[in-house]
Every structure is written in structure tokens, then in C-alpha cells.
């Protein structure tokens, strides 16, 4: 079942130059779709468009049979509830003035009336926070700490916990391991894989690291200069039909 259908998406920041140029993708339920490219290829711009943070200049994003551009308030709210994100820099992603538990509760408190959670139960704020911390393998005392007291890897786990707290259908991860040291990177990738097994959400995993994408994803898309050049199942990565640029990327790893 398709979670999101992206058709001919276009986005431009400066007139005459398209940051995202006619990109079409579909994301299936429960799958991990990887999106690989150099910096400046438009993958982060694409992510921001999909998250509803940027207005698109052409094409459509269709969720639940409704194009995002035409969504009414309720439909947009439903979209927000089911599409969450993890950003590259975990320090910037947490409000330094708020305790971890307050940041963690943000999505839940917003949607609590409409939510029917399968994996988490809400009996109290404290209990909910503890469940979240446990599922990302962090000690529950961390809830009362401030972000600056945590390491980079720990903070990123917190942002992941926040994203999964409302059991969205899709999580868009934009370079989630790029700011972490090499040992934390591996641990976070493993965590993401195991979370997907338990919770069943889809991932759009954006990265410049083809090997990391290969580890986590079943399908891989390749972007360059705003265009989608190639998209394939991971087993077919060495197939001769791969785009020249894909082959170039492979040779690097």
C-alpha cells in the first residue's frame, strides 16, 4: 500500500534554477526507501517539501488520496500526525531551555485526542516518557535532564523517540547519522532497523553515505542536481542497468 505518492515535484529557490526538478517517487507502507546524493543535490529540499515546511512550485504530494496542496485543516493535521522527522543535527533539534521530557511530549500532547496508539500506552506523562526512553535504549533518568547534559548520540536517540511517539506512518530522516561519531552512527542505524521491525512505519532515509543507506533500506533512489537519476531494489545495486552516476557512487564506497 502506498503511503505517499510524489509526482513531478518541482521546487525553486532562485528563478531559473530548480532545486528539485521533476521528481517522482512513491513510498510504500513499511518500507525503507533510501535517497542518496551529494550535498546540494536537492535531497534536503525534497525532504522539507514533503514535511510541509516549504511550498512546492510544481507537481504534487499525495497522502491518503489527497494532494497536500488541497488539504483542508483536518486533512493537513492528519498528514502531520503521520509524517514525522529526524534531522541531522541533534543539538539544534532540541530546545536548550526545555527538559528532555518536555521535548519528548510535544507531538503526543498535540494529537492526544485523535491518537489510538498500539505500542505505547499513556497513563501519565512520566510513564509515557519512560516508555519512549526505554524503546530507544536510554536510561529513564534522562527525562529530567537538559539537552546539553547529553551526548550527541543520546540526543539523536531522543529525537528519534520523539518522532516515533505518535506512531506515524512515515518518518523522514535527513542525514540522521552525519553529525555523530563513527561508533554512534552504527548504533543508531541498528536502532532504526529494530524500531521499524516493531512499529512497522516507513522510512525515507536521506544520506550522502551509500553504504549506510544500503544497510538500512530495501530500495534506493539516487539524486543529482535536483533530478532523480536512478531508483532500484538493493539487490540490484550491481546490476549493469544502473545509472552511470550510481556506478560512480558505488565505486567510492
Amino acid at each position, binding site marked *: 500500500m502506498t503511503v505517499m505518492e510524489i509526482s513531478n515535484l518541482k521546487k525553486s529557490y532562485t528563478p531559473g534554477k530548480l532545486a528539485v526538478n521533476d521528481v517522482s517517487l512513491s513510498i510504500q507502507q513499511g518500507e525503507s526507501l533510501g535517497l542518496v546524493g551529494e550535498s546540494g543535490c536537492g535531497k534536503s529540499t525534497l525532504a522539507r517539501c514533503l*514535511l*510541509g*515546511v516549504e511550498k512546492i512550485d510544481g507537481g504534487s504530494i499525495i497522502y491518503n488520496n489527497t494532494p497536500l496542496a488541497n488539504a483542508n485543516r483536518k486533512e493537513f*493535521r492528519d498528514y*502531520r*500526525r503521520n*509524517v*514525522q*522527522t529526524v*534531522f541531522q*543535527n541533534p*543539538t*539544534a*533539534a*532540541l*530546545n*536548550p*531551555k*526545555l527538559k528532555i521530557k*518536555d*521535548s519528548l511530549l*510535544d*507531538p503526543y500532547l*498535540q*494529537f492526544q485526542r485523535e491518537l489510538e496508539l498500539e505500542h505505547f500506552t499513556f497513563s501519565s506523562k512520566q510513564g509515557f516518557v519512560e516508555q519512549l526512553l526505554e524503546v530507544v535504549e536510554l536510561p529513564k533518568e534522562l527525562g529530567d535532564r*537538559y539537552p*546539553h547534559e547529553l551526548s550527541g548520540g543520546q540526543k539523536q536517540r531522543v*529525537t528519534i523517540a*520523539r518522532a516515533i511517539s505518535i506512531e506515524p506512518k512515515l518518518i523522514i530522516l535527513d542525514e540522521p547519522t552525519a553529525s555523530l561519531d563513527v561508533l554512534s552512527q552504527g548504533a543508531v542505524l541498528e536502532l532504526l532497523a529494530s524500531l521499524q521491525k516493531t512499529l512497522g512505519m516507513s522510512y525515507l532515509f536521506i544520506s550522502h553515505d551509500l553504504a549506510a543507506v544500503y544497510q538500512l533500506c530495501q530500495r534506493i533512489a539516487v539524486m543529482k542536481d535536483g533530478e532523480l537519476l536512478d531508483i532500484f531494489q538493493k539487490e540490484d545495486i550491481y546490476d549493469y542497468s544502473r545509472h552511470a552516476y550510481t556506478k560512480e557512487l558505488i565505486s567510492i564506497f
Partner: protein
Amino acid sequence: MSVMAFSPKKIKKAKLWLISALLLVVLAAVAYTFLYLKHAATMTDVGNRLASPSWEHPMGTDHLGRDVMTRLLLGFRLTVGYSMIALLAAVIIGVPFGLLAGLRGGWVDRLFMRIADGFLAFPDTVIAIVLSGLLGPGIGNLLFAIVLVKWVNYARMVRSTVLTEVQKDYITIARINGLSAFTIMRKHLMPHIIGNVLVLASLDFGKIILLISSLSYIGLGAQPPTPEWGAMLNESRPYFQANPEMMIYPGLAIVVVVLVANILGDYLRDKFDVKKEVQP
């Protein structure tokens, strides 16, 4: 004595003790004025003017025979009270303006900035004097003038805080998490704003006290017989030669309170800025 004896931690602790001690003394004095006043502040006794300290009058009497200590303590309530009023008014007016300008942007923001520029073109003391002069002497007019010049600082600071934070990832994510603009402001921006406002306010507090006292001293603020310290300084001027202590008491009082306010401001700044922002 080695410099290591005064480590930052020790200095911080010392500051804390100093503030606490002074605050205690001050609170005791204020409580005294509410609970037990031997002499009314305006009770004149010209026969006993300029008396030396005695049990009756621990600080002596002024040129009209009024008990100096009573007036001093009452003056504390007035000086601090007036300053708090001015400060609160400036904050209550400034913060919403800053929020509006920062969050709305566009023409609202531009309009606000031009207004702010206008107010900031003049130094606060000058405006306070001019306005007082125009509106006539009196503490009410002085406070009005002070609020008029001070609110802009808070508005600008709030606006700048909002503009800085709103660009950051965690705010974008808050929007993606479904938070409304109001919730973002309340939950995410307010902690930043309150911290900054408190620091600015505590530093301003000392400045406002000085402004009120100075202008009262030159006759533009509190008028006699109000026992405001600046006014007391003014009244004591002709008697400085023979009875210098009449000027020294209120003068010293002003110095001590402003000092405490500044130390408090320092302490608050340390508490709000360093620990909770990015680190080592």
C-alpha cells in the same frame, strides 16, 4: 594572596551570600516600616530639628524635625516601589510588541522598528528630563517618561530573541510535530524570552532607581514632603556643611540598593545564560 583563592565558584558563592544577607536586612527594614513605625514620616517637630542620633531618633532628625530613619525606610518602599512599577510597565508594554514584531514580520515589524529607532535616538535621561519638564514635575510624570523610553529595549530584545530562535531546527520540528503558533510561543519561546527579560530587567532596575533619584534630586520627580531618597538628598543640600549625615544616609542607601540590584542581575545572568545554553 594567590589569585587561586578567588575561583569563580567562590566568587559566585560570595555574591550569593552578599545578596541574601542584604535582602534579609532590607526585608527586615521594610517589615518594620509596615508593622511598627514610631514616628510618621511627615510628623514635623521644628523645635527638635537637626538633632543628633538618640534612642528616639537613631539617625537623628532632619531640618524639619522629622525622624530620618523612618523617612529612610519609607523611602526604600517608595524608591523600590516606583522602580518596580516603571519596570513592570515597560516589560508589559515591551514584550507583546516585541512578540508581535518578531512573529508577524512584514510591515508590522518594519513599522515597529521605525518607531523603536525614533525612541532610541534620544538618551533616556534627556527624554525623561524633557518630558518631565513638559508635563510638569511630579513622580507620576517621571514614571511615565521612564516607561516611555524603557519599553523599547524590551521590545527589541524580545523581537531579536524571537527572530533568532524561530530559525532554529527545533522550532521547525515543533511545527512538524503539529504545534500551533501559540503553543510554540508559549512552550518554546517563552523560556528564552523570560530568561532574557529577567536579566535585562534586573540590570535596568538599578538604572531606573538612579534615574528616579537623580531626577527627584533636581526637583523633577518626587516632590517634598515625599520621603523618596532623591528628594531627601535634595532637601538636605542646604544643610550639608553642618549636617552631612543627612545627605550621606539617603546617598548610601541608593548606592547599596543599586549595588544589590546589579549583583542580582549578574547572578541571574549567570544562572540563565551560561548553564542552559550550549557549552563547554
